[in-house]
Each structure stands twice: as C-alpha cells, then as structure tokens.
C-alpha cells in the first residue's frame, strides 16, 4: 500500500493536451474517484499512473518514490480494465497466479497466495474454470483476486461497471467498495457515472478538459461546488442555474419547493409557471419557467411525495415557489463560485 502523488502531469497527443496539468495527492488507503465526462482525460491520466502511457511532463510519485521512467511492473500497481482483461486461454487459477509467476515467486508461495486471494473473494470453487464459463460478477471477482494477489501499491480501476446492466451495477458497486474497505488498498477509480462516484468515493476529483475542477468529499462536491461545471455535472436532475447581473445563481431541484412548504426560514421567492411534469413514483419532477429570467431557461423542481398528487401543481398556471437562502449558490462571470453579492 502506498500513497500516490502527481505533480502537474501533462500529456499531449501531438498538439492537443489530453491531460493539462493535474496535481493530486491521494493518501494511503483512500478510495479516490476520478469523475468526468467522456474525453475529459481521466482515463489517460489513470493509464499514466499505471505506466501504460508516458506523461509529456510532470512527476509521478508512488510511495514517495519518483516512478516516471518505470514500467508498470516496477511500480507495483494493479489495474482492472473495463472488460476485466482476464486471460481467456488460462484457467482462473492461472489467471490469478500469473502476476506472481512473472515475478518468479516460488511455486509454494504462489499456491498459498492464490488460495488466500480466492478465499477472500469467495471464488475458490471456480479455480479450474475458464473465464468464458463465468458470469459477469464472477469475472469481476477473479479480476479483483488477480489484482490483489501481489499486494499492490495501488489498485486502478477503469470504468469497470460500464459493461454491466443496471441491475448488476448496484451490487457490483457494493462489492467493490466493501472489498476495498476490508483490504485498505489505495484505490483510484475512473467513471463518468456520478452515482457511482458519489456512492463509492472517499473523495472525488471532478475532471473536465484535462484539468481538475474540484477535489473533495462527496458532500463538499455536492453542497459546495467550485464552479458551474461541477455544480451541473453532479446531481440528477442537474442544478438549476439562472443568469443574472453578469453572473448566475443556482439552486438544486430538491430545494426548489412551493412557498407554502417553507417553514419560517429566510428564503428567496420565485414565480414559477409549470409546463410539464413527470411522475416517477417516489417523486414528481416538474419543468417550467421562472418569472423575471430568460424564458428559454427551463427550471426543474423535484417535489416530495406530499405534492405528488398532480392536482396540487397544475401545468400552465403560475405558482409561488421559493428556495432557502442557505441553499442558493452564486457564480461569477467566469463560472466560478462567488460569495453572495
């Protein structure tokens, strides 16, 4: 186990910088999620940490040592790929043993470690099968066992859940997180899915355009976004942002409620004309337009069950809505967070 530190990592493909100066400090044992849209550079950055790509400039330190020139096997990292990257022509046992064989660990040691890893992940009965005979969940566990077996400095995961269907994703998420907590491995997890990020990460680094927009705990990212991008990327439906006075003001849909639900707090009032509503069972999403702002900007409100009954908020009518002052977020002209003006 080791801490991972990057200083100003830049990676250019030709003239285009895919990674544009990322500095991150990931302490030993932390589950760090790299969250961002497709093409933002998060996967390239991960591959640089792994050693599959070479950075154009910047330093990478693992366990306090500079590893810029070293190939992956000398860095001691383990990686889990999107399709798990299991060796189709080897049995599960040989898949897990492979990293040890390349390090020329003695046979007896190998057998012990394979036992231990397969025991930890509950796949002992699968040891003599081939990958193609396994289910998706079983393959994931084999990939984890293989990653674990050499006691790596860090575990890197590249969108491992994107090939699973929605149902499996939730349980797979839990398994990975539980596994990491039990083993205490420094983990760097790349995803574009903010639900995964919020659910699994100790800290999240939101990345866009090759740069880190914000690093923080899920709570910090959600409640205290550093700029418009982070504010609108995390959260479903995304935060409402209304332009005003050169800057912008934002509030989350679940904080945008009918005025009669405000209990004696300081709040800002908005006149809200409902255009459309979606009934989702546990909540109702309402779309409309707020008076006094650009009529093309659609504003969403997430209404709790109490107001689920459609009759209470009728489309086409104006309703008084409000947001608690404490829930308002202000942004300046560049899109960064500003204090209330």
């Amino acid at each position, binding site marked *: 186990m080791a801490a991972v530190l990057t200083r100003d990592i830049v990676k250019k493909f030709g003239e285009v910088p895919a990674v544009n100066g990322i500095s991150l400090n990931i302490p030993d044992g932390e589950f760090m999620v790299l969250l961002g849209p497709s093409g933002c550079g998060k996967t390239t950055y991960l591959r640089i940490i792994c050693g599959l790509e070479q950075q154009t400039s910047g330093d990478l330190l693992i366990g306090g040592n500079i590893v810029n020139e070293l190939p*992956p*096997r000398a860095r001691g990292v383990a*990686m889990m790929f999107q*399709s798990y990257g*299991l*060796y189709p022509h080897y049995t599960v046992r040989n898949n897990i043993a*492979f*990293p040890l064989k*390349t390090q020329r660990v003695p046979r007896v040691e190998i057998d012990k470690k394979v036992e231990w890893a397969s025991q930890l992940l509950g796949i002992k009965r699968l040891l003599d099968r081939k990958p193609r005979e396994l289910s998706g969940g079983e393959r994931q566990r084999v990939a984890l066992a*293989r990653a674990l077996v050499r006691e790596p400095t860090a575990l890197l995961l590249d969108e491992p859940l994107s090939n699973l269907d929605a149902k499996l994703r939730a349980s797979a998420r839990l398994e990975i997180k539980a596994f990491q907590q039990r083993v205490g491995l420094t983990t760097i997890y790349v995803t574009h899915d903010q639900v995964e990020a919020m659910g699994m990460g100790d800290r999240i680094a939101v990345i866009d355009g090759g740069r880190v927009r914000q690093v923080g705990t899920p709570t910090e990212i959600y409640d205290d976004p550093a700029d418009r991008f982070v504010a609108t990327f995390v959260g479903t439906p995304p935060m409402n942002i209304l332009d005003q006075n050169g800057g912008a003001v934002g509030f989350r849909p679940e904080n945008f409620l009918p005025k009669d639900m405000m209990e004696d707090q300081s709040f800002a009032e908005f006149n809200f004309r409902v255009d459309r509503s979606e009934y989702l069972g546990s909540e109702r999403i309402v779309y409309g337009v707020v008076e006094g702002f650009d009529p093309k900007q659609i504003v969403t409100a997430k209404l709790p069950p109490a107001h689920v009954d459609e009759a209470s908020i009728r489309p086409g009518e104006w309703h008084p809505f409000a947001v608690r002052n404490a829930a308002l977020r202000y942004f300046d002209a560049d899109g960064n967070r500003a204090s209330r003006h």
Partner: protein
Amino acid sequence: MARITAKAVAQETSFYAAVVFFVVLAAFPFYWMLITSFKTNGDLYNVTNIPFWFNDPPTLDHFRYLFEKTLFTTWLLNSLIIGVVVTLITLVTALPAAYSLARMTGRNGEALGIGIFLTYLVPPTLLFLPLSRVIAMLGLQNSMWSLVVVYPTFTIPFCTWLLMGFFKSMPREIEEAAIVDGCSLFGAFVKMAIPLSVPGILTTVIFTFTLTLQEFVYALTFVSASDQKPITLGVATDLIRGDVFYWGEIMAGALIASIPVAIAYNLFLDRFISGITGGAVK
C-alpha cells in the same frame, strides 16, 4: 394446396438454371481433368468417341505411369520441402512484424504496413531478371533452394498484411493486463498475443503453403533441371516427350496437385475473407 404462381415457378427455375450454369462453367475443366486421368489412351485419342463419359473402362495406368516412370514423387517432395521451409521463414519474419505494425498506432505504422503490402504487388515478371543474377551469385542456379530464397519476397508481405488484420481485431486489454501483471512487452507478445492468435496463424500457414505451391514464374525461370522442379512446374512442363503431350499423365498429375490446395481454400475461405476485410475495409 398453396397457389404456386407461374411467375414464382419461372423465377425459381431461372435461378437454379443460373446456378447450374455457374457451376458447370467453374467446374467443368476439373471434371475434364478428372475423367481424362482415368481414361485409357485409346479412349482419349479417338475423335469419334463421346468424350463426356468412359467408352472403355476407366484405368489407373496414367497414375501408375506418373508415380513409377516420371519424377512425380520427386516433385511432390520438392514442393513439400519448399513449402515447409518457406512457411517457417515467413512466420518467423512476418509474425513479429505484423504485431509491431498492428500495435504501433499512428501514421508511421499505417504507412509502413501499406508499404510492405505494396511490395506484394511488384510483379515477378519484373524482378525475375535481376533475381536470376542474384541467384547465380549465390550459386543456387537451377536448384530448388533458389525458390526457398525467393518465395518469401511475396509470402512475407502478404502474410504480414493478413496477420496485421488479425492482430488489429484483438483487443489490447489482455496484453495490457499482462504488462501490468509483470510481463515485458516481449513477454506479452509471446504469452498473450501469439497463443490467442493461433486461428490467424493457422490460416496464414495454410495460405503461405498454397502460395508456394501455386507459384509458376520464378520456378520456370530459375529451375530447369527436371529433378529440382516443384510440382506445378513439373506437371505443366515436364510431362512432354519430344513433341508429344502425355495428356493422361498430365491431367492425373494436375489432379493430384490441385486437390490439397482446393481443400485448403475451401476450409479456410471464411477466415481468409475476414482477414482481408479486417485489414482492408476498416
């Protein structure tokens, strides 16, 4: 009973008629080859006989003559040796080259790959003149080993291109996982890429072998000694005594020499096509 329209019947009939036409067109010469090799000379060289079937009972005379009185078995052996050695040389050269070109992304890899492939299109009828001098310099004139030296000039480009297609369609994840797990690049090539591309390698081996069997121009140019000839050259040019063509024997020899190639092509056609389209049509 369902209504069978006249139009449908006509369509079906013309369809099958067309199929029969194509089959006859393609296969008749081989039927002719087949039946000639089993007909007695008396039957063959008689203009009044109906040529499409046996008039005298079929005979194995031509085959016997072929194997006993000609150098046919020597030619078979020559072709076998040439095929095996050339295939080995080709695999050892083309396999790493194809892998390197398939994994080397970017302009350089592409350009080099296409460049290598274009050398396959350089015609033997252009190169045979200078090559005959090179062969003479090497002291290999009139020997079948001259062909072993020259054949890789077209088998290597062709196989590199074919294998490139196969390697490109292999996902990189497995080699990358091996590298992360501790292999060197070379180790990943040997332990992952090669075992997983065995179907592709097999196809390449078969096609290389058939390429060497089919070749005629270089064989004709470099080899005149009868006992050094590969099988195709031997059958086509050496079964003539004086001015007389021994058609029965020629057809028998052609038949034997054609069968393995035809079988190989049929079995591996689908793989071959995916190899071509994988590489050519991106």
